[in-house]
């Protein structure tokens, strides 16, 4: 399926991407696209154009325009985002190669003569039909998940939680009497759990949801508190795993945000130099809203990014 790129001569793929420095070790970059804001047919053709045939095929196999568009934007976002960091002077999104690790987690296949020292860039993407996001870190595993705030859950929340979540999490949700609030807390918890599993990179069965608890450690220890009770500075999100010893799970830090008033986004990253008992300063997060090749807008600190918990 060859598409007509009649406006191609007006765009130079690599020079339309604003180059940027890799995040520092304690920093995370988050880039997102809203498919509804990408309307230009020629721009979408450009995105298709930077994909290799197999990725193009995957995009076109999606059933329906909306799904094809968000699948395309996901691939375009990941390629253009990584290209911005100009690793080893490579700035062409088309030339990036990807592969999956043993458990299916996508990673960049860096092209080197010397394969011993791959660049320290890590990424993870998540997408819904209404928002596509890509997180980037340096020297730290990362997992992200985005969900629509108003996503409907077909099953009864507590039945679902009893089947898939840990006992502590079920109790947390069961204590919420308002069904709307309960649903939203459920979605937040889901995104956090997904982000953790994706950061681990072991696949859904590598860290079954029932085997770990995500909870909110607030100023008041003990008792059940909803996220409304927490102020971002006073609390952190922690994970307890039944399988791993406690010190391994303290290697992970979480952030939970509301993006563009429409989505919850959870980010889980590896912490380095975690001293026992020492509470690390929360990492820095910078968020850009982008339409690749067209415009980027740093939205950190604006209404588009509401930090629920975890970062400064």
């Amino acid at each position: 399926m060859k598409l007509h790129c009649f406006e191609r001569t007006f765009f130079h793929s690599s020079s339309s991407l604003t180059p940027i420095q890799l995040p520092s070790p304690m920093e995370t970059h988050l880039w997102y696209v809203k498919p509804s804001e990408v309307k230009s047919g020629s721009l979408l053709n450009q995105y298709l154009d930077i994909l290799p045939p197999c990725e193009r095929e995957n995009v076109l196999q999606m059933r329906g325009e909306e799904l094809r568009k968000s699948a395309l934007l996901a691939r375009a976002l990941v390629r253009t985002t990584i290209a911005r960091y100009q690793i080893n002077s490579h700035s062409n999104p088309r030339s990036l190669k990807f592969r999956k690790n043993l458990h299916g987690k996508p990673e960049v296949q860096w092209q080197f003569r010397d394969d011993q020292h791959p660049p320290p860039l890590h990424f993870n993407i998540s997408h819904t039909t209404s928002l596509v996001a890509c997180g980037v870190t340096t020297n730290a595993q990362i997992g992200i998940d985005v969900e629509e705030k108003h996503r409907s859950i077909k099953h009864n929340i507590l039945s679902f939680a009893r089947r898939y979540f840990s006992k502590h999490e079920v109790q947390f949700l069961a204590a919420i009497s308002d069904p709307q609030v309960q649903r939203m807390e459920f979605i937040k918890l889901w995104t956090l759990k997904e982000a953790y599993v994706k950061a681990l990179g072991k696949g859904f069965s590598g860290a079954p949801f029932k085997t770990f608890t995500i909870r909110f450690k607030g100023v008041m220890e003990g008792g059940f508190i909803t996220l409304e009770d927490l102020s971002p500075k006073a609390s952190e999100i922690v994970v307890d795993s039944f399988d791993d010893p406690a010190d391994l799970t303290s290697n992970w830090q979480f952030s939970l945000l509301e993006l563009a008033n429409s989505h919850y986004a959870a980010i889980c990253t590896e912490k380095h130099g975690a001293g026992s008992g020492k509470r690390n300063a929360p990492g820095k997060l910078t968020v850009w809203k982008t339409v690749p090749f067209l415009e980027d807008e740093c939205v950190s600190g604006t209404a588009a990014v509401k930090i629920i918990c975890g970062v400064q």
Partner: protein
Amino acid sequence: MAAVSATCIRFGTSVELPVRANNQIIGKSSSLVSFGWGKTGGFPCIRTSRLQICAAKPETVEKVSDIVRKQLALSPETQLTPQTKFTELGADSLDTVEIVMGLEEEFDISVEEENSENITTIQEAADLIDKLVDKKA
């Protein structure tokens, strides 16, 4: 840059993936193979006289498709084949987990986490269900 209207984002003609007849698992020395083609929304199915290598029962495949349709709120025009991947239909991980839960409720089975990762198509779901249901019997 000239404004391009929203209709330009159509990716050419819609892609209809052909249903390949040889997708079903056929036993090496199956003696009787028959194809049945249902009406629109039905499925090609193969019955072999060898029980051990057998595609799932058509009723199972049908029930799985119904559950998938409901979970993903698909339009009636959306064609489903046994080979259709959930991801092609826009299912994310939460949808897949809800689908698995729906299947567990419908068939009164329990799907282990390792297995739920392997359920990526309607056929795979149906095969696993029949296997688990048979084990129970």
